[in-house]
């Protein structure tokens, strides 16, 4: 994208009508972070980091958010491709359905997941009977809850990228005899890789911050389903400073991971 921007356009004056709201918006987005930093009890930070529960929660958060991003990629990219490349009846309805988890309050999403995957649920009862698998109150349940709320972010980003991509490359490959699968893996995927990366980052970030669906579907058990946002919420009940420290640890970990990925994935000149 940046390569296409012409140099003169960059040197022109920035219109105040864009600059002022941008700065106000930035202040609004970053001030709460400043609030956390100001109130943080820095002296107890290393002590908190050494607490095994905190490390357990952080590790669990990172592992489950990454696993759910994997699931989102596995299922979300094909959904996005279907929506962007295949004409079928009811496509706009399907597109609307995909975004349901975005508008659904996460707690309601968690209840809905329980009704389907709970031990009395449609799928859950069958899973329990046939395989002895119970998802609620398990780490797999955390991943499931995160995937439910995060997948729309991936689908929306990737579909946007697919629609923006020049379809003539795919047509050219097809006229040269490539099948749809070959076109998808050799042409389409590399073409929309930045869109997929952006979607995966959004997806991961959303999964990492997930609270409502997780606490409702997977409950709260240290080391098994207690992710960082749950630990923060509980710390808030007794100790505001502990909650702030935990939030900052989560924030620092996620910013570090995202910054490293950005270096690797989107290292365009």
């Amino acid at each position, binding site marked *: 994208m940046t390569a296409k921007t012409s140099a003169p356009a960059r040197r022109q004056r920035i219109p105040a009508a864009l600059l002022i709201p941008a700065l106000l918006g930035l202040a609004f987005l970053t001030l709460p972070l400043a609030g956390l930093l100001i109130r943080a009890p820095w002296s107890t930070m290393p002590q908190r980091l050494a607490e095994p529960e905190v490390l357990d929660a952080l590790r669990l958060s990172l592992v489950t958010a990454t696993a759910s991003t994997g699931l989102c990629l596995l299922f979300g990219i094909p959904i996005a491709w279907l929506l962007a490349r295949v004409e079928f009846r009811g496509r706009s309805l399907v597109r609307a359905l995909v975004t349901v988890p975005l508008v659904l309050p996460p707690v309601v999403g968690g209840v809905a997941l329980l009704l389907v995957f709970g031990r*009395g649920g449609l799928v859950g009862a069958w899973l329990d009977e046939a395989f002895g698998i119970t998802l609620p109150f398990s780490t797999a349940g955390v991943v499931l809850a995160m995937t439910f709320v995060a997948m729309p972010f991936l689908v929306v980003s990737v579909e946007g990228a697919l629609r923006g991509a020049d379809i003539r490359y795919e047509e050219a490959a097809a006229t040269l005899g490539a099948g749809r699968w070959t076109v998808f893996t050799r042409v389409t995927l590399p073409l929309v890789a930045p869109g997929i990366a952006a979607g995966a980052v959004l997806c991961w970030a959303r999964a990492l911050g997930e609270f409502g669906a997780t*606490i409702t579907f997977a409950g709260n058990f*240290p080391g098994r389903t207690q992710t960082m946002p749950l630990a923060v919420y509980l710390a808030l009940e007794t100790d*505001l400073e502990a909650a702030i420290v935990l939030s900052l640890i989560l924030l620092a970990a996620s910013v570090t991971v995202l910054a490293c990925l950005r270096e690797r994935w989107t290292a365009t000149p």
Partner: protein
Amino acid sequence: MRAAALACAAVLGLTACGSAGDDDASGHLTVFAAASLTEAFTQIGEDFEDANPGVEVVFSFAGSASLASQIAQGAPADVFASAAPANMDSVVRSGYAADPETFARNRLVIAVPEGDPDGITGLADLADPGLKVALCAEEVPCGAAARTALDAAGVRLTPVTYETDVKAALSKLGLGEVDAALVYRTDTEAAGGAVHGVEFPESDSAINDYPIAALDDAPNPAVAEAFVDYIRTDEALEVLTAHGFQAP
């Protein structure tokens, strides 16, 4: 009421309206109350409005700790009713209220589905590893009480989840995901027919006192005092006991 407030706002400006309500026993009363008081206080609020025409009671029900921190951050509340003395103490220590009074008590029961399919009669039955049990996290009052009661009974059990509040623990039972949950007696009353509360003797060691106080920065101090006094009348106590609370 609303029309009057609007007219007042138009003539005097909003700040003047706020103080106009302070002089007489009328206007809005904002009560911050623990989530477990939802049903009882809603009814008591209606009775209080009937007894004091012109007063409109607005409730904010949430976890006691959240409410205490909202008060510390300057939330415009008149009265605070907490499910645990600890949260009231923190409000008093920060100088937002003085002289809280205990107006009700609550005790734990074992909530089980109606009909008690697993035949649970006491805390010891919950230690069965085949049973899924929900407890409250120890950071919240119902979890601290559960820990005390379990210790008193000498029962060691591993729940499947430590819920963030008592209503969440009960909803896991309602959805059929757990077989039993340690909750307050008032919560099983509020849940109606679907849930049955099994009483157990060790709950004597973990009884929750509910303190109430008018807040020093109350926007409507006269009505706040009147409400706190009303909570301690026999009439209000009758409503509280009907919802499963005990007299202090």
